């Protein structure tokens, strides 16, 4: 995974609360292979009308959003379904960071596993960033080393779990680390089998 350090990029303001993963990627697109790319389905039913035409007033359809790498939204971003395809859609569209006052836990975990930074800010800061993006500024800097967001002449702090921060900074994949621990897992299994024999499934043929 590509490590995340300092990102300076154009940002898109999406001033909505509770953008759930059903919005981020509607269920009917989830049969597709990741190899085909999920970016075109990101927020599909908000971006396109019933006839498939782009809704001109939707922020992601603005010309300036085409190369945006940072998305800014209101609270409870990514709530709901555990579908990692929601993160695939954001990443494949080109996003590397989402700024919001709160995130669905499973979404945030999926984001980190795909190198997408969920940067948590206060509600007041989110409102100010949204307002700045809608009035003047479009370029934003997100510094994961220092936990800072810079926009115009304003600086905001964001928080992220330290475990996730380290993982993103290093571009780590959990599997690489766990691969070195198979002996520990085997030892656990061995001890546990005696202590909790009931975890073995019984026959089940009734």
């Amino acid at each position: 995974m590509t490590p995340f350090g300092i990102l300076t990029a154009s940002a898109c303001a999406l001033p909505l609360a509770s953008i759930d993963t059903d919005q981020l990627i509607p269920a009917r697109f989830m049969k597709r292979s990741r190899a085909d790319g999920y970016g075109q389905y990101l927020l599909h039913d908000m971006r396109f009308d019933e006839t498939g035409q782009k809704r001109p007033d939707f922020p992601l359809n603005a010309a300036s959003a085409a190369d945006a790498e940072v998305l800014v939204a209101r609270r409870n971003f990514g709530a709901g379904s555990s579908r990692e395809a929601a993160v695939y859609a954001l990443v494949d569209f080109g996003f590397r960071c989402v700024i919001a006052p709160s995130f669905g836990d499973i979404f945030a975990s999926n984001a980190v596993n795909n190198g997408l930074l969920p940067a948590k800010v206060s509600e007041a800061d989110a409102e100010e960033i949204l307002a700045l993006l809608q009035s003047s500024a479009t370029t934003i800097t997100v510094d994961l080393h220092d936990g800072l967001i810079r926009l115009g002449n304003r600086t905001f702090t964001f928080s992220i779990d330290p475990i996730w921060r380290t993982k993103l900074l290093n571009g780590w994949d959990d599997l690489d680390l766990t691969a070195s621990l198979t002996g520990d897992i085997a030892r656990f299994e061995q001890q546990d089998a005696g202590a909790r024999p009931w975890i073995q499934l019984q026959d089940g043929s009734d």
Partner: protein
Amino acid sequence: MTGTGQPRTLFDKVWDAHVVTRREDGAELLFIDRHLVHEGSFHAFNKLKEKRAKVRRPDLTIGVADHYVPTRTRILSEIAPEVAGMIRQLDDNCRANGIRIFGFDDPRQGIVHVVGPEQGLTLPGLTMVCGDSHTSTHGAFGALAFGIGASEVAHVLLTQSLWQKKPKRMRITVDGDTAPGITAKDIALSIIAAIGADGAQGHAIEYAGRAIRALSMEGRLTLCNLSIESGARCGMIAPDETTFAYVTGRPFAPGGDVLDRAIAAWRELASDADAAFDRAILIDGRDIAPTVTWGISPEDALPITASVPDPAATDDASRASHIREAIDYMGLRPGQALETIQIDRVFIGSCTNSRIEDLRAAASVLAGRKARVPGLVSPGSHLVKQQAEQEGLDRIFIDAGLDWVGAGCSMCVGMNGDLVPAGERCASTTNRNFKGRQGPGARTHLMSPAMAAAAAVTGRLTDVRPLLRSDA
């Protein structure tokens, strides 16, 4: 080992018993006792193929076909090829890896969170994961159960373990007996309305109190299922006699001496009397009324006797904006009495409310009555369906004019084609009233099975209480 004499919560006891190792940064590698996979798990199986890797513990991995299964036919060739392909793909992935599967043609097939408990795969004190956010359901047994994404599913397939940071603990106590006609769904929606859809983010919930102890396993499953709708990582209830009685005799559950040993261990799981919680919330069960949602988030829930909120009446700009967005999408007016909202159809089903007790509650309202709107009743598993038919519940639904269909996720998520048409309003026993959840443009009102049945009878959102028979 942790827990050197410190009082611990139920959550801590189950967590601590599964720690394989701890990383310097505090992340802990948890052993996973049960891994449930479904059609949507294909991304993870593809990762496995890329790595040419094997499933570490196929014996602890269980496949269940539910998200895409058709509910109106048992013949796969009759449905859209790309949907049938999803079901076959799960079959293929499970067979290739030696994973036990409750596939589409299995008489025990159903929704993964219904099949798990029903088959005795779900037990107290286990760690359970599944690539589905409603995995929190299994916490009803005092299991530590939570939903994960595809990368994590791949990690569990390969290593039977998962890196996690310990969440905070929240206790939600519901004391005071609930009134007749109040269900676990009403309790859950009231909690979510009180704390918000992100109110429990970063927390493991333990539900406690008289009203919780009084719930059947079915009710506890409904309550824990909806934990994720308050943003919680998981929801748990300490196992008790109700739990042990439910587990005993289930096909995959332990029996004999092993069961005796297990029950003795499970009795020790309850939170210690002076265990500390990061947050504690107290709710009076006597205050809970039949509850419905009016908006586009499960937190948009109110007693059926209330009215649609007015965005002009709140000083909170963000909240006002949410209310405007919600009532615009839902086609409602501020101040409109909830009981005047006309519906177009009902759906009774989903991992939230499709168990036998749910079907009985809906049937007791519909018995001898006619539905004014069309509707779908989808039992949670084919064994639930069979039992309902033995009890004659299917006749009640069919005589009322509703469709009695097969088991699966169905109209909760619409992946199998069971959709609410655009602009239509559905009284639904499901878990999410998100925009477009039941189909593009669909409008969802969440409620209990009895409330959905009442809405079917009158054609509008309705207080079920006057419809409840005293002789039922």
